[in-house]
């Protein structure tokens, strides 16, 4: 027996007999634990129900009562060749997300179609889902042949129709097999009832499925899941971790982190309780130490220098399947999970909505309803790195979270042109509509004795940033300037109190702070704030929201930005007086405050 184990999913329309076929497979391969068959038979006797093979799998009470599979159940068996995990996926539309869960774990699929009932809606929908999930190995079992008297024509009709449908999805099934879950024909052994059938039995077919090909030869892609430093446990290694999606890497290789663009070199490959490793490839989940100490965040991709890099964009065209109870709508903030990245995402455009059972386009829709498949454009506030599925399937996949639930799953078709982000569009529209004050900016400045400015302190330590910001407010106020400090806390507790915590609200807080700055600087004041843990894009967002008014950014402590250059950097958190002095002289230089010393 090979030391391999492969996973196969059983899909198809409700009541087409998936569980029965699996029950039969388990019984015929002697995979049932001793006593299991008797136990289920006894339960059937107690409840005065005829025994069915399906009950072996539908082990849960609900399912036996309703006679349908609710969730994807796994079972295990082996043939002379190898071991298998068989996943029984539910065929009822209500449980489509369970079917997808089952199918995404599998390397090959058996799709069951009822010979008497023929191809039904979910036969096709499951076929479509498999193509989207990237499941290419498929055999179709035409089941319940006993109900059509093992009629060859009935079988051939289904084969022709369904082959045509699958062809449009780019799936070429390995076999169509006429079977009877009840009678046992062509499952483990050739059925005398179908002398006209010369293809493989179900057991022969599953032994013929191949393991998914190794993706070790593709470009290297590691979604950075986390960065560990267990200093408290006396371990000084700084370890970048994740599960390698594709490719191979070796100690000494140059690496690039995207989207930040930071570079380093692999110093070591870390693995607990194993021989020292010099290389690691797709499927492994090792750790890496780097030759230089660079600041990288979970969610970035670590890729190999010199290999084709992933795309980086804020917009991408996606083929999306929606499972959420509430429809996906435009301009609502959702959460994106792509590799190890988690960030806000918006639906900006619905290109087409497809009927997955007919492969036809549904009339112009502006939202995506439950069980729809749609081609859409999504936008993230910050650039994301990804591959398009045509290049690398594994790293072009994403899910969308709505109201804490995974509600959508999609594959990225292409980066989309981001001529203007939704934020830029918003600001353009806002400024066109903005009613300017009757008092000219210059008049206000001379009356107040200073210009307006939005001053933003940033620091990894929230308390330090706040101390500096408050000190500046006091200093300027003492000099009779109209300065006002507002902390993030006061915004979140007040103005933002109506925001409901469905997603990460940080971006919403930043947005409202920026809008406030636009108003307060318009009033001629020096508006001071402090925000912790910002990155390039947070500051660019604030800058954009405050425009056309002026912003000044002051960063305290070590540089954390990828490309952004703050107007002022204060290295030491300790020396408040010197720091504030530097800010004041910059304000003088920028002619915001006047220099009395001249």
């Amino acid at each position: 027996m090979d030391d391999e184990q492969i996973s196969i999913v059983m899909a198809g329309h409700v009541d087409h007999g998936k569980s029965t076929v699996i029950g039969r497979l388990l019984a015929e391969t002697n995979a049932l634990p001793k006593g299991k068959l008797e136990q289920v038979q006894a339960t059937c006797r107690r409840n005065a129900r005829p025994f069915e093979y399906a009950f072996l799998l539908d082990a849960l009470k609900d399912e036996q009562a309703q006679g349908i599979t609710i969730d994807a159940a796994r079972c295990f068996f082996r043939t002379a060749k190898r071991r298998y995990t068989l996943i029984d996926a539910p065929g009822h539309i209500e449980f489509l997300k369970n079917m997808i869960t089952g199918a995404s774990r599998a390397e090959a699929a058996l799709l069951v179609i009822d010979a008497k009932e023929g191809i039904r809606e979910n036969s096709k929908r499951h076929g479509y889902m498999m193509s989207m999930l990237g499941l290419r190995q498929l055999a179709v079992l035409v089941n319940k042949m006993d109900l059509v008297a093992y009629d060859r024509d009935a079988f051939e009709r289904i084969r022709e129709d369904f082959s045509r449908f699958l062809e449009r999805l780019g799936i070429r099934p390995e076999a169509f097999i006429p079977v009877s879950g009840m009678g046992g024909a062509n499952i483990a052994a050739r059925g005398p009832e179908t002398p006209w059938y010369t293809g493989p039995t179900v057991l022969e077919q599953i032994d013929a499925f191949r393991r998914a090909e190794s993706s070790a030869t593709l470009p290297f892609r590691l979604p950075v899941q986390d960065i560990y430093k267990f200093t408290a446990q006396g371990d000084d290694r700084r370890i970048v971790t994740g599960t390698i999606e594709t490719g191979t890497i070796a100690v000494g290789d140059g690496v690039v982190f995207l989207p930040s663009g930071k570079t380093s070199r692999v110093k070591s490959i870390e693995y607990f309780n194993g021989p020292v490793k010099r290389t690691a490839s797709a499927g492994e989940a090792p750790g890496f130490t780097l030759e230089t100490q660079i600041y990288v965040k979970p969610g970035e991709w670590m890729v190999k220098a010199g290999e084709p890099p992933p795309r980086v964009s804020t917009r991408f065209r996606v083929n999306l399947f929606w499972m959420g109870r509430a429809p996906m709508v435009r301009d609502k903030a959702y959460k994106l999970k792509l590799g190890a990245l988690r960030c806000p995402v918006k639906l900006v455009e619905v290109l087409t909505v497809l009927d997955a059972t007919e492969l036809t386009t549904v009339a112009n829709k502006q939202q995506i309803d439950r069980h729809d498949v749609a081609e859409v454009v999504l936008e993230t506030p910050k650039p994301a790195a990804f591959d398009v599925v045509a290049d690398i399937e594994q790293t072009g996949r994403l899910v969308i979270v709505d109201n804490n639930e995974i509600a959508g799953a999609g594959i990225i078709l292409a980066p989309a042109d981001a001529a203007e982000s939704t934020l830029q569009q918003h600001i353009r529209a806002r400024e066109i509509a903005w009613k300017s004050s009757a008092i000219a900016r210059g008049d206000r400045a001379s009356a107040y004795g200073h210009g307006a400015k939005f001053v933003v302190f940033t620091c990894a330590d929230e308390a330090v940033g706040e101390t500096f910001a408050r000190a500046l407010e006091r200093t300027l106020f003492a000099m009779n300037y109209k300065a006002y400090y507002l902390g993030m806390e006061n915004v979140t507790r007040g103005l933002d109190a109506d925001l409901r915590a469905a997603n990460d609200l940080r971006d919403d807080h930043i947005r409202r702070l920026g809008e406030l700055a636009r108003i307060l600087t318009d009033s001629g004041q020096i508006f001071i704030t402090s925000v912790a843990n910002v990155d390039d894009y947070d500051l660019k967002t604030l800058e954009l929201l405050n425009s056309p008014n002026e912003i000044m950014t002051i960063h305290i402590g070590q540089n954390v930005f990828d490309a952004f250059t703050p107007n002022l950097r204060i290295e030491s958190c300790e020396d408040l007086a010197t720091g504030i002095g530097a800010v004041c002289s910059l304000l003088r230089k920028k002619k915001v405050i006047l220099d009395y010393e001249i």
Partner: protein
Amino acid sequence: MTHLDRLEASSVHIFREAYREFKNLVMLWSIGKDSTVLLWLARKAFFGHVPFPLMHIDTAFKIPEMIAYRDKMALEWRLDLIVGQNRAALAAQSTFPAGKLTRVECCRALKSEALKHSLSGEWPRLRMDHTAGRLMEDLKPEAFTGVIVGARADEEGSRSKERYFSARDQQSEWDVGDQPPELWKQYKTDFAPGTHVRIHPLLDWTELNIWEYIERENIPIIPLYFDRGTGRRYRSLGCYPCTSDVESTAKNVAEIVAELRTGKFADIAERSGREQDKEDAGGLETLRRGGYM
């Protein structure tokens, strides 16, 4: 990669995902082979460290060797061990061995209830004090919302339907029909406040995989699993009134692997020595819906 390599990598991935997403994380440790492999995989994921506490629910009816082994390992690997117990039920002798409860009711009281209230921090718990070298009252019992559990899909019907990340509501109830989708290594990691989440890194492992991995990694395992001259050994560990040993002369891990591959246990259910499963038709399912692990 071998099949064990793939299982290991996928469990490690789940561990890291849990550690990234949950602040109040704890891992259940039953001293048995599965949760010992679970512990080993945590050390794989975190490069030799176990960066969260381990909780053991002590029913007071565990085989005494298990408790001794637990404390020894906790001290040796410097584990942050927490021990919970239904002290009230034990004081009132409200148990199956005392004749007051059925087996399933006893499981519910000494395991499910004890677990629920120990996780929430409502009931007193013990914690390993590494300076004193023994368990002491846990003075600041925090609440845990993410719980790592060693359930395997091949154990019995209801476990075969679990997710890697599985939400329980505030009553610890499990809605089998309405579970979140899991695909492409993306799990449900966003929750409403107050939700409890079970994390199952071992879901895809079979009993045979567990023993093959123990053999490959040379993981120290409690000797109750081996025949020590009596011709009997435990295949599954639990409380002594409800767990019987099995006839087997497997004396070490290699012999257990051989026995599972081709020998007498190749087609006998692992939990066949656990009496509570037999009490009602869906016994374990009833328990699991109510929060049993």
